[in-house]
């Protein structure tokens, strides 16, 4: 166990854990947008700033990718963390003025109208969709495209992503809800990636429940599951 302090309280973490994880587990509130416990920390949104004192030196850093270390002292709410977070929120608000989660953060941190030219984007480039698709689902259907201010997320080469199984993990994880899923009895579409796949009907109840392609993929990557498991919907299994 690694012992350190957060805002003066002693906490414990395990080797390999990061400060944000331990802070959240212990009930500390650190705002964050690009972190998810199921994924490797990425450090893109820059919101989870804390001040870490290590060996007598204090520095501002993101807590999501800062490893827990014996004896460090973490401050989650200082003048500097607030100052940095406020500007990050203002930058995100100028980018995505209509996104509820950003508007809520702006309210919480008393960030008013952005002092920059306002865009009308809906994606904050947190990379959660890209990482969940690669690290958890394992199909690598979407990626980052371009660099600098031209950066965006989309299917490689911006053509219909042939490996996308329309599982909806990206839809679920997106903090700004900019990836939409539409479903009918016969098809499911991930609107942002323009991916439409036919649905499979449950062998037992006849209700269409998931794309064929997704179920085939799950069958391929899982072991020791009965052959007809993927033929039935969650309720009938």
């Amino acid at each position, binding site marked *: 166990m690694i012992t350190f302090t957060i805002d003066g309280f002693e906490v414990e973490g395990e080797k390999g854990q990061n400060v944000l994880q331990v802070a959240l587990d212990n009930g500390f509130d650190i705002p964050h947008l690009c972190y998810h416990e199921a994924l490797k920390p*990425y*450090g*893109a*949104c*820059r*919101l989870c*700033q804390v001040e870490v004192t290590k060996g007598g030196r204090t520095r*501002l*850093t*993101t807590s999501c*990718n*800062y*490893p827990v270390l014996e004896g460090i002292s973490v401050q989650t709410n200082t003048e*500097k963390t607030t*100052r*940095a977070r406020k*500007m*990050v929120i203002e*930058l*995100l608000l*100028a*980018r995505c003025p209509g996104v509820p989660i950003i508007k809520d953060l702006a309210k919480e941190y008393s960030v008013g109208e952005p*002092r*920059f*030219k306002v865009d009308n984007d809906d994606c*904050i*480039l947190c*990379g959660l969709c890209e990482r969940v698709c690669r690290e958890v689902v394992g199909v690598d259907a979407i*990626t*980052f495209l*371009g*660099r*600098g*201010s*031209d*950066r965006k997320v989309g299917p490689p080469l911006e053509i219909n992503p042939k490996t996308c199984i329309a599982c909806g993990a990206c839809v679920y994880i997106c903090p700004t809800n900019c990836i939409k899923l539409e479903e009918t009895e016969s098809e499911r579409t991930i609107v942002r990636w323009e991916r439409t796949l036919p649905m499979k009907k449950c062998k037992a109840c006849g209700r269409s429940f998931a794309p064929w392609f997704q179920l085939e993929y799950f069958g391929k990557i899982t072991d020791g599951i009965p052959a007809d498991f993927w033929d039935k919907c969650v309720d009938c299994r």
Partner: protein
Amino acid sequence: MKRINNPQELEKVREEILGSRDPDKPCITICSGTGCHAFGCEKVTESFRAELRKQALEERIYIRTTGCHGFCEKGPLVVINPQKIFYQRVTPEDTGEIIAETLLKNNIIERLLYTHPQTGEKIVKEENVPFYKGQMRIIFGNNGKIDPTKIEDYIAIGGYKALSKVLRELSPPEIIDIIKNSGLRGRGGGGFPAGVKWESCRNAPGDKHYVICNADEGDPGAYMDRSLLEGNPHSVLEGMMIGAYAIGSDEGYIYVRNEYPLAVRNVGIAIDQLRECGLLGENILDTGFNFDIKVNRGGGAFVCGESTALMASLEGQAGEPRAKHIHTVESGLWEEPTNLNNVETWANVPLIINEGVDWYTDIGTENSKGTKIFSLVGKVNNTGLVEVPMGITIREIVYDIGGGIPGDGKFKAIQTGGPSGGCIPESLIDIQVDFDKLTEVGSMMGSGGMIVMDDKTCMVDTAKYFLNFLKDESCGKCTTCRDGTRRMYELVDAITRGEGKEGDIELLEELSWVVSEASLCALGQTAPNPVLSTIRYFTDEYEAHIKDKRCPAGVCKDLITYSIDEEKCTACGKCKKVCPSDAITGEKKVPHIIDTEKCIRCGACITECKFDAIEVA
């Protein structure tokens, strides 16, 4: 080259090479660096060869094509050895005369000599040209002595002596101590002590240790690493081999920009030669040391010069940095301990081993030892690559070596450290250039770019230029760098267009603080430097743009108007002819007039007017 099996054989080979060469035999040395290539040195070389053939002198006179000599302004450069006669701006038409007069009759061709711009004196010898005189070319000077594609040339000047010495006489910790004691700091920008880095890497547990040479030089206007790798690849490779032995690595990589074709070619040739003679591979010089080097060509993203992005790129991933809370010396390439140094740092290593710590530490300032190669460009007479001892003043670089500002221009500032560096004003022209001093005044050493600016340079426009570069070259991963640099660019752009508002300077400063404090990698952390340093030293220029809607340097197009001084105008009509927007009207013998509505402020009329009649306000 035959196989060199042990240190004794290396010395024997060296003796053989030296014995086969007559030091008094005339040699035409032609600079074939990138700058001279642009001036057409290849045609000059062909012409020399053809002349020698024609006059049946091929046996009597050597020709050596070398890497960059540094004085790119005056290329193509030719040095006649052993007398070291320095000819500049040589054309294929001059070669016959050079052979007939200088090589055969020992006559100097006045026309091709360098003329001292102040005294008008013609200078014969390379070492007396002021550009070279003020330098200390301990790393870069060898470029002029060797053909980079010939390992024999490198061995002849003492090449691989340092490697042989460390493998025979020194233990890895002893080598690390030498590098630590030499005070060598990383030349790539960070200035981190190289020996400390090597030690941490050596001590880090791992199945495999890697060494990397960072040759992803991407600063606008900087080309010193390129020229070193092109002109003396073996010095870099020898440094890497010594480092690898000290660190305990058997595999190295050179990450070089694909836009540097000559560097890629020459370092590739050098590696092939080393493998052929057994200096790379297994059991090098019969000492049990195994090491090999691979060349990886970069795709041209500036951010790949950042070590973690470079390593991601080497692994085949997108070149994006990661946080360095765990250092790359512990977990770098493929999560193994990795030591990365830049081209110039590696090239310093054999020199330190050969000449010793005392000799090396005599050069430089207290905390910055040795020399530094700078690429001196911009509004300066002698554009080129200069190697100077640490601690030299900016004034010496710009005036003694650089020959001052062209025309009647006045020195205004010098931008150092590449796009993430800062602008240093005239009031600080006498500061001593070293790692700490440059940082102290709000700039940095970076990899060694130096852009001289004169009074016709607008500092707000300069900040805009670098921000534009940075916002495009940011990988886009983190909010503060991606959106922060873009917003800074938008604000500065608005200021240059006369749309600046009260409070913009404060907003830029606040944004700068957050971008530098909260960004993920060094690109973002240093990106505000061009803005902060220009605000710090040239606030009045920002204020003139914002409050008075005026660009004092006469650069920002939306804030200036062109007019013609009636007194000076002779109505020659030349300006009228070159104006691309037909904005100038006027009959013969009547002073001309510029229609400011039509004028696009391109400056063509200014260049054309012989009477200095165009006014910019």
